[in-house]
């Protein structure tokens, strides 16, 4: 049994929140470079240049890449041989978020309830936390910074099995088309296929955490990702929606078994500032 202390989790989460909001990972920067090579629109090229310049400024000066420093979404894998001492895991995550958003000068973008007064909680908590029990003695914490602009353009549909692969493709492409300029393209398209109503949404979100442009390990899924990327980039939306070739940096698909009667599909869009971070304790 490995003991991990509450305070260690708080410290790590605080740092993750700040780092994810200030600095993009190498995979994201590399995807910008590929996009710049592909883009044909002069305005689109200029926008991509500004996106890269913004990343340099944010990293160098220690500033948030975007004013929307998001809802903090955590996927946590807890090894069965881990014991957490000194407090609850969820409390540690939320305390880390609280400290990170305060000390990192990050925007607090969470309201206490959705429809009555919508009062801001003033510390960006509560985070969204998905916990999974796995084998081993490690604690893996994955963070996705989910901005409102792209999150609002997400969509889910329960297709009929008869709609098949074509139906899935159509839904993905239409979701990106409907989103237009709103989610700050070029986007990362997270697609979930299968499972059930709530599982498919989780798959789509989880797909956004994969390094940008890393293909799925299964060849047929990777081929589907490539085909979807091609179709999405034919839409002409382009960088920040001003027209161009690069509407998406990547399409990531995650799949799961499903009911004989169902074909659930979910699409979660991530903005060009794909802010994700992962650590293992």
């Amino acid at each position, binding site marked *: 049994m490995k003991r991990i202390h509450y305070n260690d989790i708080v410290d790590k989460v605080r740092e993750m929140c700040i780092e994810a909001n200030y600095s993009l990972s190498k995979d994201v920067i590399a995807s910008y470079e590929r996009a710049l090579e592909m883009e*044909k*629109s*002069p*305005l*689109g090229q*200029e*926008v991509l240049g*500004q*996106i890269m*310049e*913004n990343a340099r*400024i*944010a990293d160098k*000066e220690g*500033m*948030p*890449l*975007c*004013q*929307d*420093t998001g809802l903090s979404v955590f996927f946590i894998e807890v090894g069965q041989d881990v014991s957490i001492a000194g407090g609850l895991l969820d409390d540690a995550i939320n305390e880390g978020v609280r400290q990170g958003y305060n000390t990192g*000068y*990050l*925007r*607090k*973008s969470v309201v206490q309830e959705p429809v009555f007064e*919508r009062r*801001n909680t*003033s510390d960006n908590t509560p985070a969204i936390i998905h916990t999974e029990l796995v084998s081993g003695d490690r604690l893996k914490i994955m963070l996705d910074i989910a901005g*409102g*602009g792209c999150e*609002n353009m997400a969509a889910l549909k329960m297709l009929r099995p008869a709609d098949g692969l074509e139906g899935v493709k159509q839904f993905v492409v239409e979701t990106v088309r409907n989103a*237009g*300029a*709103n989610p*700050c393209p070029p986007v990362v398209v997270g697609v979930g296929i299968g499972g059930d109503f709530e599982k498919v949404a989780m798959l789509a979100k989880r797909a956004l955490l994969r390094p940008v442009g890393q293909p799925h390990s299964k060849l047929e899924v990777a081929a589907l990702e490539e085909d979807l990327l091609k*179709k999405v980039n*034919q*839409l*002409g*939306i*382009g960088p*920040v*929606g*001003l*027209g*161009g*070739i690069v509407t998406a940096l990547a399409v990531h698909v995650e799949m799961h078994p499903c009911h004989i009667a169902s074909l659930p599909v979910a699409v979660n869009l991530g*903005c*060009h*500032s794909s802010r994700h971070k992962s650590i293992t304790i």
Partner: protein
Amino acid sequence: MQELKIRKITTPLTDDVISDLRAGDKIELTGVLYTARDAGHKRLVKMIKDGDKLPFDIKGQVLYFVGPTPAKPGMPIGSAGPTTSGRMDLYSPHLIKCGLKGMIGKGARAKEVIETMREYKCIYFAAIGGVAALLSKKIKKAEVIAFEDLGTEAIRRLEVENFPVVVINDIYGGDLYKEGVKQYSTRE
């Protein structure tokens, strides 16, 4: 789409300047902008409906749809890029009818907003979404002037220099989002 030449314009905006702008024009704005997003708009429009005086004279002004990050010590403001304008669509026509002349955000506007813009001469600009650290460099001064309790959603008076925007909707029916997509779409 027009050539990528940059025009410098100062705020507040006049009808003459607005009449001269076309979708696709690249602009650098200098002068005062006021910030507002969802919660601020809700209160402004309630004030209009209740017949109350707005916290600033809106005539000729430009609203920037933004909720900035907190300013670090010694800085006028934190990161400050545009938010999605569509969420303001229900409110914007009320403000345009009171004399608002420009809006800065990102993403397409509703038909009713565009029609009101044409009728009352108002321009919709986009700032580049997600380049908030870069845009913050163009903001020289920021001061909360109303609804301080709303935190990031409070109304701020910004002084900007050469703040880069592009005209999305002009008053002649031009729409850069539609034109851009049309030009680069290769779908059958």
